């Protein structure tokens, strides 16, 4: 079910602006990989290139290669829509559909994949997805209320429920906990632990402790200066990155001396 990702020598452009340069990293299946690095170094940009979401930004393009389980992600025959059905994404800012109810939000992806959903089946998916995202108890009595009636943190958990409802093979999370309180954050981290058994997870985070807690592999991105492209400085087992990093910049960032 889970898939591995192999990135080699990837450059990402916004028009003429080279945002990320020369990224090469293998991402193992059934593992959690954390991306850390200062703001603006291209973590979100790189993450979006993994499910071809960069393509919806006018002018954005990539050069280089990404293999998903050995298959070229950017092959002209590959349909980006199909890719995104298998590689789910949670965004930096919560974005539930305001015109749909909470339950419909959870089911939105399912409705795209398979039109026919039995009622009992649908409510089962809604409940299990919301439970895993630690939102069920708060919303079980108002599943028909609009998704936008929730608090920011609740909205983000709704988005997580929506993303896992379709059981994607890879789950990309862009700072999923930046709007959450510690209790919900713990719940999401537990969820990540649980999902690791079946899925490949990539998570962007500014929270070092979180990276240390949830990930097996950590990748550190940095940029030399404003207007310069972001680079992948180093990656490796999380324990190693956090104790004996090879690059002095990594050590400086982790110990909080800059960034």
């Amino acid at each position, binding site marked *: 079910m889970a898939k591995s990702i192999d990135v080699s020598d990837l450059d990402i452009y916004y028009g003429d602006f080279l945002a990320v340069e020369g990224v090469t990293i293998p991402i193992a299946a059934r593992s959690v990989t954390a991306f850390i690095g200062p703001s603006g170094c291209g973590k979100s940009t790189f993450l979006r290139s993994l499910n071809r979401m960069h393509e919806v930004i006018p002018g954005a393009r990539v050069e280089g290669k990404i293999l998903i389980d050995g298959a070229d992600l950017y092959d002209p025959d590959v349909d980006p829509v199909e890719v995104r059905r298998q590689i789910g994404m949670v965004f930096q800012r919560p974005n539930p*559909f305001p015109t749909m109810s909470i339950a419909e939000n959870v089911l939105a992806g399912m409705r795209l994949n398979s039109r026919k959903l039995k009622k009992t089946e649908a409510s089962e998916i809604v409940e299990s997805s919301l439970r895993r995202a630690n939102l069920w108890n708060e919303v079980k009595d108002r599943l028909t209320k609009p998704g936008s009636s929730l608090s920011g943190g609740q909205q983000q958990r709704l988005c997580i429920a929506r993303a896992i409802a379709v059981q994607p093979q890879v789950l990309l999370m862009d700072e999923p906990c930046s709007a959450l309180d510690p209790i919900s954050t713990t719940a999401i981290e537990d969820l990540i632990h649980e999902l690791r058994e079946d899925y490949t997870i990539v998570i962007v985070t500014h929270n070092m402790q979180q990276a240390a807690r949830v990930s097996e592999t950590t990748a550190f991105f940095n940029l030399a200066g404003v207007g310069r492209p972001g680079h992948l400085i180093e990656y490796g087992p999380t324990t190693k990155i956090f104790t004996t990093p090879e690059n002095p910049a990594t050590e400086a960032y982790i110990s909080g001396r800059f960034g």
Partner: protein
Amino acid sequence: MTSHAVEGTHRPPRSVGDRVFPALVTAAGAVILVTLAGVALFLTYEGLPALTAKAADIPGADSFAAYVWPLLYGTLLASVLALLFAVPVSIGVALFISHFAPRRLASSLGYLVDLLAAVPSIIYGLWGIFFLAPRLVPLYDWLAGHLSWIPFFAGPASVTGRTILTAGFVLGVMVLPIMTSICREIFLQTPRLHEEAALALGATRWEMIRMTVFPYGRSGIVSGAMLALGRALGETIAVATILSVSNVVSLNLISSTNPGTIAANIALKFPEASGIEVNILIATGLVLFIVTFLVNFLARAIVGRRAEFSGAN
């Protein structure tokens, strides 16, 4: 909130702009209300005599209700036909401009549509009568020949093409630009965040539009349609030019015996009207005024019903 405690005795100084601006906008709001009330008062005052007029004074009918009914019917029919043409087309064009066309083409197309809105209605009327009507005759013949079992196409088909369907079509073309402009603006306002949410779930472009753009723009589409309907209801010259009127109430859309519309009727009759006839025409104007109001209230009710889900919060 300590400032509240002292507010009663010690009002904080306000800038000149803060004092002048509310006064200005309040005045502007009042002007609108006063104008509206003035128009309503005038119509009622001048129209009332028509309601009690003797049967002999009313041209071609024995009561005011019987006089105005075919006109009201024609007005609504032509406007509804116009919307039937205009709504799907303008949503399609707006969507093309906002989500499908390359940026350069989109902006010039948008400009062109806005330009169309500025064409005076007499031009549309002339186009309708000299260009469109004759070219629609074969279509009407065909409809009367093959689909005459549908009441709308019962025939006999008009030989000039100056039918209520032609009028409705021309009205549709006339309201197209304003509706397209509104829809385009609304569609462009769909938050990027929500469009991306749909795309990231694996929605195709069309599915993304159905999941985010349409639901988000729903109230805007309804408002646009109502604005268009308002314009169609009140359109005078184009209809007066095109339609051959015989003041009947019929479902037949393609014959030469058509109901007139209130606005066109006023324009056609007013120059020769005198005495009570003027009051009768003004009274029909009052009916149009009321209908326009009702349409707007209805639109508001439709928009407000699911306001919670509108995406505005």
